[in-house]
């Protein structure tokens, strides 16, 4: 006999874990199925940047609420995940970048983000480690960052405490609609639930196909570099107007450099390789912004997969035509906004009206052709 859960969550990243957590606290019996350890994909290997200055315009209200959630993580997650709230600077080094920065910062401020434009000199006062070559900077006093690799440990404890039936290292190989609910197939037997939330990151395309829904998802392969622990060289989280640098120093001294430089990988193999010239380019950008970083050594680099929809906005809402099926993912800066969007998702699943609109996927669906070969 297998019990039928009120909700089955497929995918154990920030979206799946947060939704499962709040659904369980809302009274549902929840099972979470994750093919590996929790939060080991994007959620555990991203740069941890919690900035409003790289957030998509439409997501700014969500990111601000998510930022507050991250800052208060001990209260709802039981773990601080290494969150540091600090000043954030988005830099412009050329006139073209300054123009881009003015435009983007203004737009983001209009959307509610507390971003001010300051001169390069003022920016140096905010960030003593900053180069004197910045022309202009966007300044947000409540940016920050988290320590992504702590995410899995934090959610694991919280989920177990909340009574979620946690199934790590249990891959779902198929999903069928049965008896008014859903049955997930795994190597160690089926799992049944009345409702299902698909939260599988870059793999939601494959998962939605189990339900006959075609949602194309682009896979980004983001490279990251970390130094060994070094003396303090910076105190803010730093980016660049075009969004292609993320840079922060953790309390224990390591500096993480990212910004979306692309490595090699795919859904099947993961982020398998890094491009050396792109690591060097990324690091040059970082050292241009924070010159003292040059004295550090690169200790490790890696690549993680990030999902992106056709309009680079989230896929979060009910699955059209499939009552009881929901999807949550591809949020873009999903770590930043993830906990809040997933919490809205949990509200929706619990039958409550979410306090902010979700992002229904109807707009993204490709027409389904019978016999289409399964694309990569």
């Amino acid at each position: 006999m297998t019990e039928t859960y009120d909700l089955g969550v497929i995918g154990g990243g920030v979206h799946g874990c947060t939704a499962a957590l709040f659904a369980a606290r809302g009274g549902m019996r929840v099972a979470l199925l994750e093919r590996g350890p929790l939060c080991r994909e994007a959620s555990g290997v991203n740069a941890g940047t919690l900035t409003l200055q790289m957030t998509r315009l439409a997501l700014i209200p969500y990111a601000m609420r998510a930022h507050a959630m991250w800052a208060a993580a001990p209260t709802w997650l039981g773990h601080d995940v290494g969150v540091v709230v600090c000043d954030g600077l988005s830099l412009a080094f050329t006139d073209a970048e300054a123009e881009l920065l003015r435009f983007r910062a203004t737009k983001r401020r209009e959307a509610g983000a507390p971003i001010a434009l300051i001169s390069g000199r003022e920016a140096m006062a905010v960030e003593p480690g900053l180069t004197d070559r910045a022309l202009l900077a966007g300044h947000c006093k409540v940016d920050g960052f988290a320590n992504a690799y702590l995410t899995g440990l934090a959610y694991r404890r919280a989920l177990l405490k909340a009574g979620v039936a946690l199934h790590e290292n249990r891959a779902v190989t198929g999903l069928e609609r049965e008896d008014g609910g859903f049955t997930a197939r795994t190597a160690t037997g089926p799992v049944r639930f009345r409702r299902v939330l698909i939260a599988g990151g870059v793999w939601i395309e494959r998962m939605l196909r189990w339900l006959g829904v075609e949602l194309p998802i682009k896979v980004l392969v983001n490279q990251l570099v970390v130094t060994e622990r070094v003396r303090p060289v910076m105190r803010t989280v730093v980016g660049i107007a075009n969004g292609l640098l993320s840079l922060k120093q953790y309390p224990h001294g390591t500096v993480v450099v990212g910004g979306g430089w692309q490595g090699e990988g795919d859904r099947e193999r993961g982020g398998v390789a890094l491009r050396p010239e792109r690591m060097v380019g990324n690091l040059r950008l970082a050292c241009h912004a924070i010159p003292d970083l040059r004295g550090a050594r690169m200790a490790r680099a890696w690549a993680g997969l990030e999902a992106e929809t056709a309009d680079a906005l989230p896929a979060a809402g009910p699955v059209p035509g499939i009552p009881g099926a929901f999807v949550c993912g591809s949020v873009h800066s999903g770590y930043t906004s993830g906990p809040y969007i997933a919490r809205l998702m949990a509200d929706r699943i619990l039958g409550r009206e979410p306090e902010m609109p979700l992002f229904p996927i109807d707009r993204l669906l490709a027409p389904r052709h019978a016999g289409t070969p399964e694309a990569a």
Partner: protein
Amino acid sequence: MTSRRIPGATRPAEVAFTYAGTPQRAPTGEALATALACAGVLGLRRSPAAGTPRGAFCFMGSCQECLVLVDGVPRQACLVPVRPGLDVQPVPDAMP
């Protein structure tokens, strides 16, 4: 532990360099870690997490315990040959 140069070996001429501002002498080409050990300097840094004293351990570039700054660049002392005028400093502590 004080290392001791084995008598009877032929060595190149000694050259002068500095460690933490103090003058040192060692045969040119000798590994910096060796030169410092022979001068009685074994503790080169402190571990960042617990602050315990560390020095050269593997002597083959693997363990990273012998990290020092050589002319401002972090290098493993077991791999750096002594050269005249080297300015060697301990690495700064990671975070206060």
